[in-house]
């Protein structure tokens, strides 16, 4: 401080001197407002006032000028901000008008095309999007969407611009007589069943996906074989017989809007997409969504399906690896894998079961055109090693290799790293595999998130919600599909992850929700195609650890999946079993000349899986349209002394 004072004292005469000079300049140049501020600091700093009225005037002027300048600046800034603010508000308020008129226009003409476009676009918002609303405007702020309140015919005046109105609850019904949690195959089957049996039923499906209910099998089969380059958008596939269909069970016009659910005369099925049920209050018969809205119900179905499992080594491997890994289950996974497969040189599929093998064959087919390297690795000895007996698994593996797949069996993944722009997979036996992208098909983890809040039992052996033979978990709560661990009267407690089971169990749950009280009895089937030469249908417990008896005939060119569907005139395999009701199959194509059989050529046959000498599972190997016989044998649950005699019932030598 002392130092300051001495410095200050030294400066003072200087300041005085400079102010004198200033004054002199000013007198000469005439009083000039602009110049004076430059001298102001000196004048201000002088401790000893120079004295004289003139200086005081100048001083006052300078201060005034400074204030004025500051004032002008401040005014300008505030004005500018205010203008910007007004502009923004105007913009916001103009948007609801634009959107309302657009929505009104599109709703008046419910073109299938416009609506079709919305269903295929992913809407990753957490707000509810009633399906008919054009959900293409993703950029509009929540306030306006809530303000417009979806496609009701009445034109609503939007609220004061800039005010955030309550977003979701106005669109979600507060009560649903039938509430179905999950929007997959089981849920849709239940919805259909309920509507068929309870006239005017009001069914609400709540799904956290953005898509309407769709079927999953084509995602790993038919869609990959489509010739249409826009298949990832249309999601339509051409079946062998030329008929085309969408993977969606129904177009959007089948469903009604959630907010119309309570008022529609004859009821209907409404789908609330992009909403997750996070809490279930069983005592109060209501659920809570992730946006805190509550929906009460009379009857509830849990059909939450599952989430693909991942390998721990991949989960821990870091972002560069995980972002090059696909866990395949949904439509988005199909789209992204399709894109990836066109842009990389090498894809590796980890997993040798249904999904892994089907994807390997589908991609292997592509590899012939594009030069894509397709690798499949798994811990078993052969493809479908946990399903097929060893000899058949080996045979299948050869066929898969013929589809262009590099198969690495008995492979246990030890680590995965990202190095030199490639993924390096190291196996436990030391082998190293370099690839660009990984598809993990290592199983499904059933989604039992609601078990805790709902107080529902989870099965420790099979996973999933534990339910009885009528698929009931507790009063008013049923579970169906992949997430249901149910009691099968004939085969014992089990959990099944197949498409037809989702349909059968969904239907059954729907029947029981409308008062039927029927147990699981009609055995569901499943099927798989591994290329055009290998196809099979199966029913019951098909576990390769069980003793098996296989009865084979010689295969001709007629006995392939392709021929089967061409003959029956239907497309997807399971349809050939069901919808083929009143008519006989269309005339078969001209038979090809018989193929000279190899001694161990397992062309056609039937394989029985035994448990305590009773047939609990049957595979129909390249033999089609005979599922009723197989179902009957399992239903009977009898011990048969000679299974060759039982095999005769299938007429495997005929078509």
């Amino acid at each position, binding site marked *: 401080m002392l130092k300051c004072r001495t410095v200050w004292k030294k400066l003072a005469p200087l300041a005085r001197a400079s102010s004198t000079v200033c004054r002199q300049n000013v007198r000469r140049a005439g009083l000039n407002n602009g110049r004076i501020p430059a001298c102001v600091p000196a004048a201000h700093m002088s401790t000893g006032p120079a004295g004289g009225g003139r200086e005081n005037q100048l001083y006052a002027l300078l201060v005034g000028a400074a204030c004025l300048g500051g004032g002008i600046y401040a005014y300008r800034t505030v004005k500018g901000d205010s203008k910007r603010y007004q502009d923004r508000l105007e913009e916001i308020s103009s948007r609801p008008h634009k959107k309302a008129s657009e929505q009104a226009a599109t709703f008046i003409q419910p073109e*299938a095309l416009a609506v079709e476009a919305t269903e295929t676009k992913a809407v990753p918002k957490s707000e509810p999007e009633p399906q008919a609303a054009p959900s293409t405007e993703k950029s509009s702020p929540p306030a306006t969407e809530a303000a417009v309140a979806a496609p009701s015919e009445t034109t609503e005046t939007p609220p004061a611009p800039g005010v955030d109105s309550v977003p979701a609850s106005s669109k979600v019904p507060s009560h649903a007589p039938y509430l179905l949690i999950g929007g997959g195959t089981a849920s849709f089957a239940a919805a259909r069943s309920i*509507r068929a049996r309870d006239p005017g039923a009001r069914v609400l499906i709540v799904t956290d996906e953005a898509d309407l209910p769709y079927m999953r099998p084509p995602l790993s089969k038919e869609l990959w074989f489509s010739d249409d380059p826009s298949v990832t958008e249309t999601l339509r596939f051409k079946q062998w017989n030329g008929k085309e269909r969408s993977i969606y069970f129904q177009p959007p016009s089948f469903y009604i809007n959630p907010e119309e659910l309570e008022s529609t005369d004859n009821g209907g099925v409404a789908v609330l997409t992009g909403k997750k049920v996070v809490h279930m209050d069983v005592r109060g018969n209501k659920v809570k969504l992730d946006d805190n809205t509550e929906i009460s119900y009379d009857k509830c179905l849990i059909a939450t399906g599952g989430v693909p499992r991942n390998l721990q080594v991949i989960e821990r491997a870091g972002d560069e690896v995980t972002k090059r890994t696909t866990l395949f289950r949904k439509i988005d996974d199909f789209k992204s894998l399709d894109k990836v497969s066109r842009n990389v040189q090498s894809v590796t599929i980890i997993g040798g079961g249904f999904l892994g093998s089907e994807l390997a064959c589908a991609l292997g087919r592509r590899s012939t055109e594009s030069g894509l390297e397709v690798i499949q690795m798994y811990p078993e000895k052969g493809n479908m090693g946990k399903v097929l007996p*060893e000899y058949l698994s080996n045979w299948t593996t050869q066929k898969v290799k013929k589809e262009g797949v590099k198969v690495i069996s008995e492979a246990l993944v030890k680590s995965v790293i990202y190095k030199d722009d490639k993924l390096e997979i190291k196996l436990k036996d030391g082998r190293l595999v370099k690839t660009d992208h990984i598809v993990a098909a290592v199983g499904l983890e059933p989604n039992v998130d609601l078990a805790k809040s709902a107080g529902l039992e989870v099965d420790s052996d099979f996973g999933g919600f534990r339910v009885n033979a009528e698929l009931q978990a507790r009063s008013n709560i049923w579970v169906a599909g992949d997430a249901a661990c149910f009691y099968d009267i004939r085969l014992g407690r089990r959990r099944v992850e197949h498409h037809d089971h989702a349909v059968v169990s969904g239907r059954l749950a729907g029947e029981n929700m409308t008062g039927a009280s029927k147990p699981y009895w009609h055995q569901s089937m499943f099927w798989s195609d591994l290329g055009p030469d290998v196809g099979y249908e199966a029913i019951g417990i098909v576990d390769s650890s069980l003793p*098996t008896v296989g009865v*084979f005939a010689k295969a001709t060119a007629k006995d392939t999946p392709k021929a089967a569907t061409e003959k029956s005139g239907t497309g997807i395999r399971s349809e050939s079993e069901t*919808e083929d009701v009143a008519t006989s199959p*269309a005339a078969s194509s001209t038979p090809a000349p018989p193929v000279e059989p190899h001694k161990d050529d397992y062309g056609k046959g039937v394989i029985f899986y035994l448990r305590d000498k009773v047939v609990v599972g049957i595979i129909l190997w390249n033999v089609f349209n005979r599922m009723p016989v197989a179902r009957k*044998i399992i239903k*009977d649950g009898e011990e048969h002394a000679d299974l060759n005699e039982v095999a005769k019932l299938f007429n495997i030598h005929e078509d």
Partner: protein
Amino acid sequence: MTSVREEGKDRIIFATKEDHATPSNAELIEEDPNDPYEERGLILPNGEINWNCPCLGGMASGPCGTEFKDAFSCFHYSKEEVKGSECLEQFRAMQECMQRYPDLYPQEDDKVPEEKSSETEQTSQDSAPVQDSDTPQPNTESSVESS
């Protein structure tokens, strides 16, 4: 000659055509036509219509489900000489409803629903099959939803 081979716990039989041409001596349990657990066809054992039959596709459950049920019930229980002749009103109402949803119901619904052919468009609802007989529909083998 039919050959038999064992591979561990698995038995493999290669059967000749002649062998399988002889009738099987495997015994199957007789079916109970009134088994309450069984999946039914279009017509239930008590004569009623099974609206949940997979063969109907989604006809009874869609937006025009009520109209469809009215029309079809009327037809089913009709005792007129020309069956269903008193049901024109219901059929018209159904047709009117279906015309409002062209992508669900293909515009071939002028014809009275006959037996379903496998050639019908699978992308939308199939026209309803009418099996006016006492025997139930052949049991569907799997219940996969198409339409």
